[in-house]
Structures are given as structure tokens and as C-alpha cells.
């Protein structure tokens, strides 16, 4: 199957001004590769600050104006510049953000979900919003709450509801399971699997390698702004000897269940 999303050698620098007018370029991504096909769940794994979320935002064309890009992002077989990618956002591609700060703090949940429903082209935003929340076990009383009145888990469910009002062809889920209890992590990931089985390409950005192995078709491992390895989830087993790249092996061995083994990492 041909890839829906293909990122090749993506580099992102942030231009900053130091004291006076000296320009400084801060490299954030130094070479990211990622492909995702319809029906596939791709896990993007790496430590905090490795540039995982940044990659997701870059694919949607959401980087701030001082970001400078290099490399190619191909969607549906056509190379797209950031402006073109932003036009796709919401229609074809969708972000599932990581924290409650992605909800507007001064508007009640209901107004925000209704706005999302309108953007998703629903004819009756009010009903669509209620249904989307009800689907995730949130009653109509949640519509009147403000984001700061939600628990972390509720906020995530609200955002999932907003992001899936129009079935996207590509979903980029940014740390969707951080801080959730194991039970909720499983159901959330199962939902992504379901979306993929329905024909969506799902990229799950996470640092919880173990949980995502159950649902992922491929695991892309990145470190310090570049991808270092693409691995088969089945290779993450035993002492990790089936993993090709030493960094992937070290990452696997460093997991608590594998004895927090860190000798392989310099």
C-alpha cells in the first residue's frame, strides 16, 4: 500500500534574535523520517525533547513563523509546503493534542466542541457535539464546564471528541496517554487501532513504548531531533537482541520491566 504521509529528512531550525540584532539559529529537528499508510498505527517513540511533538506540528503546518524548514513532506503522493499542509489540517489531517492547554481556557467546553463540529461540516453542531461527548461517556453537563474544571482524563476525552468529529485520513496523536491510568491507556490505544482498521493512518507520538507495542504496526524511534531506527513491534522482546539499532536496544533494556538496564547507553 502506498504511503499517505511520507516525511523525508525533515529539518527545523528556530531563528532567534540575541541581544542586539545578532541572529541565532537553534536546530530543533535534524533529520526526521516517517511514513504512515492508511490502516496503519505508527508509534513515534523517543525521550522528552527528542522532537516528536514538533514533528507532528510540522506535518500540520502549525510551526510558528520563526521556524525554518528543510526536507520534504509528501501527503497523498504530492510534496506539500507548510501553507499547503495547513490547508489540509482539519480536512484531511488532524491533531489530537496532548494537554488541556489546547482547550480555550475562557470558553465553556460546549461552545468549543460545537465550533469544532461546525468546522467539521456537521449540519447540526449542537447535536453533533452532544453525541460526540456522549460517545466518550461525558454527559451534557460537561458542555457547561470550563477547561479548568475538567479532570485530566475528561479533558483528553473532550479533545478526542473534537478531533474525531470529522473522520480524518491522518490522525497525529500527541502524547495521548500521558498521566492516564493503565485501563484508560488501553482503551484509548484500542480506539486508535479501531480508527486505523477503518482506514485512517494514525501516528501516535508517545514515550510509553511498552503500552503502544500492542497496537502499533511500526515503531519509529527518534533521539535528539533525528530518527534513528524503524522497528517491528514484535522485535521488542526478550533482551532486545532482535532490534537492529543499538539505541533501540538500549531504549528497550532501560524499561523498568527489563530491569532498568542502562549500561548500553553512553
Amino acid at each position, binding site marked *: 500500500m502506498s504511503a499517505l504521509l511520507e516525511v523525508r529528512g525533515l529539518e527545523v531550525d528556530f531563528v532567534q534574535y540575541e541581544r542586539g540584532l545578532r541572529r541565532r539559529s537553534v536546530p530543533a529537528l535534524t533529520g526526521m523520517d516517517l511514513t504512515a499508510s492508511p490502516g496503519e498505527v505508527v508509534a513515534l517513540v523517543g525521550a522528552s525533547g527528542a522532537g516528536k511533538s514538533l514533528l507532528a*506540528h510540522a506535518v*500540520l503546518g*502549525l510551526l*510558528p513563523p520563526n521556524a525554518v524548514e528543510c526536507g520534504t513532506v509528501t501527503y497523498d503522493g504530492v510534496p506539500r509546503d507548510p501553507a499547503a499542509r*495547513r490547508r489540509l*489540517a*482539519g*480536512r484531511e*489531517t*488532524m*491533531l489530537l*493534542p*496532548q*494537554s*488541556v*492547554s*489546547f*482547550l*480555550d*481556557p*475562557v*470558553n*465553556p467546553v460546549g461552545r468549543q466542541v460545537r*465550533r*469544532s463540529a461546525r*468546522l*467539521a461540516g456537521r449540519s447540526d453542531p449542537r447535536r453533533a457535539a452532544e453525541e460526540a461527548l456522549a460517545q466518550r*461517556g*461525558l454527559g451534557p*453537563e*460537561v458542555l457547561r*464546564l*470550563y*477547561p*479548568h*474544571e*475538567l*479532570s*485530566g*482524563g*475528561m*479533558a483528553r*476525552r473532550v*479533545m478526542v471528541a*473534537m*478531533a474525531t468529529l470529522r473522520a480524518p485520513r491522518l490522525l497525529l496523536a500527541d502524547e495521548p496517554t*500521558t*498521566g*492516564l*491510568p493503565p485501563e*484508560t491507556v488501553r482503551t484509548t490505544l484500542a480506539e486508535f487501532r479501531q480508527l486505523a482498521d477503518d482506514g485512517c493512518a494514525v501516528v501516535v507520538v508517545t514515550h510509553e513504548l511498552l503500552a503502544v507495542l500492542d497496537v502499533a504496526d511500526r515503531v519509529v524511534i527518534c533521539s535528539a531531533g533525528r530518527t534513528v531506527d524503524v522497528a517491528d513491534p514484535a522485535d521488542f522482546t526478550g533482551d532486545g537482541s532482535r532490534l537492529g539499532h543499538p539505541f533501540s536496544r538500549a531504549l528497550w533494556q532501560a524499561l523498568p520491566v527489563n530491569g532498568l538496564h542502562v549500561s548500553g547507553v553512553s
Partner: protein
Amino acid sequence: MAVDLLTARLRGAVGRLLRLVLLLAAVAAASFTLMAHSPIDPVDAYVGGDIAAIGPEQRAQIAERWGLGDPPLERFGAWFGQLLQGDLGQSLTFNQPVTQVIGERFPASLALMATAWLLSGLFGFSLGVVAGVRQGRVADRAICWWAYTLASAPTFWVGLLLLYVFSVSLGWTPVCCAVPVGVLAEDVTLLDRLQHLILPALTLSIVGVAPVVLHTRHAVIHAMASDHVAFARAQGESTRGVVVHHVLRNAAAPAVLLQFAALGELFGGSVLAEQVFSYPGLGAATTAAALGQDVPLLLGIVLFTTVFVFVGNQLGDVAHARLDPRVGRRPSRGRRGRDGEPAGLPAAPEAFPPPPTGEPEPAGRGVR
């Protein structure tokens, strides 16, 4: 629950009232001290040009009649006692009860200040939004430059400039007063009044507009760079949609708070603007009272202004809490584990948003 809410409201109202009373007492004492140490001699100021015509005996008589020889504390006590009975005293300058002077002149000032307040608020907010959305572009730079220029321009100078251009050179507006000179009160039309109001109000609003522009611009930039706008864009929201649905309300909260907090400044500005345009409002009366050592009138105006500014600030608080639910005292619902999560779970730290930042600091913005 409802009773709890009611008592909480009541307690809040009583607390505010208590604060107002303390504030009034402190302001009265401070103003009185200032007036008691003023270098202007009240008798000289009262008699004016005829000072040579009266002898020292007469001066002493006037001073005694006014009780100027009494110790300041005693005078303050006498005045305060009358105040508690609702009597603000007699204005020496206008030879009328203080309440009557304030009552007659406040409507003119209120029209002036309300017009200026609305103009600067609406105009400043719109310009601030434009500047914030077009950050770094030509429009933003022009608006910023303009705002900085206005922020550093004194009221009276802007007033004189406008007076020169529109009244003297172009002749579009009258040079002075609130009504045409030499026209009977019953013949004055609303149009006349508006024509006389426009230039002082414009002066006053132009000076008040700069802080609103700059604070709104900052709030808009902050909101445009925020996560929730990124999420909105990810859902395909256009820039116009982002501004209307995801930025305006966020930026309005600090602007409204600032605009209400600036009421004191507005009052201070009206003193100068009314002086420049010979507009017979409360500001002009303040100047007359201060120059004439008219202690009862000045204290009356000071107390009145205090109440005015205090009420304005309280209204600002209420409006701000309406716009930004995080600062309101709404009892928190929702955190009841209703969604089936064990209460003791380590909630994601992001579940608690940081306190709103980038809001203007109302303290320290006194009468200029």
C-alpha cells in the same frame, strides 16, 4: 448550596463596603492634611483682588468665622462630624452647598468621561486586535508607533493641538465651554452640546487609548501563540475564525479590566481637558477649589471621585470574572471523580492550567 452561595455573596459585598469606608476615611484624612499645609491663604484667595481694601481686623474676623485659627484636628473632626450627617459643607468659591456644586457639574463631566471612555475602549481594543494579529507587519508597527507617541503626550498639549487645528484653523468646533456663549439655557440644542463635547472627549480618549492598544496587542499576541489556537488551526480554522472564536474573548478580559482601572486616570485627565477647553465640569471645579483653597468643595470632590473610581474598579473585577471564568469565584464543579477515575490518581500536571499571565497590573495607576 444556594444559601451558601448567597452568604458568600453577602460576605463579599460587606467586605467591599468595609474596604470602601476605610478607603474614604484614609483619603479624607490625607486630603485634609494636604490642604491644611497648602501655601495658599484661604482668605487671600477668597477676597482676591480686593485684598488691599480690607484691613487686618477684617481678615482676622473672616479667619475666625471660618475657624481657621482652630487646631487642624479639631477642624477635621468638625468637618467629619458633619459629613457623617450627610452635610458636605458650603463651597466658598461657588457660594453653594458642596453637594449642589457636585450635582450640577457631574453630569457634564460624566458625559465627557463616558464618551471618552467608550471611544478609547472600543477604538483601542480594535486597534490592539489588528496590531496583535498583524504582529511585526506594517500595520502593527504604525499602530505601535502611534500608541507610544500618544502614551508620551500630555493631555493638555494634545488638547491645545486639537483646539488649534479644529477650532482655530478649521473652525469646525467651538473653542470653549459646554454650550454656546450668550445663548439662553432653554435654547441650547442637543446638537450644540454634542458639538461642544466632541473635542474635549476626543482629547481625553486619545490619551487613554494607548494603554488599551498596547495591552490588547500583547494579549492578542499571547493568545495567537497559544496551544488552543494551534488546535483550532489544526481543525482548519481560518485566521479570521481564530480571531473571532478563539482570541477576542481572551484578549477582552485584560482590556476590560484595564479600562475600568483607568477610571482614576480618566478623572485626572478630565481635570486638564476641562481646563484647556473651559468645559464647566467637575474637573474645572476641582481646579477652582484647589486654587481658591476651598477645602469643603475639594474634599467633597475627592470623596466623590474616590467612590466613583472604587465602584469602577469593582465593576471591572466583576466584568473580568465574567469574561475569564478562572478568576471568578464559581464553586468548582466537575472535580468529583464523576468520570469514574479514582480521585487519588496522579492527575496530569496540565490538568491545572497556570494562572493567567500577561494581564495588566492595575496597582500603581493612579491619577496622573
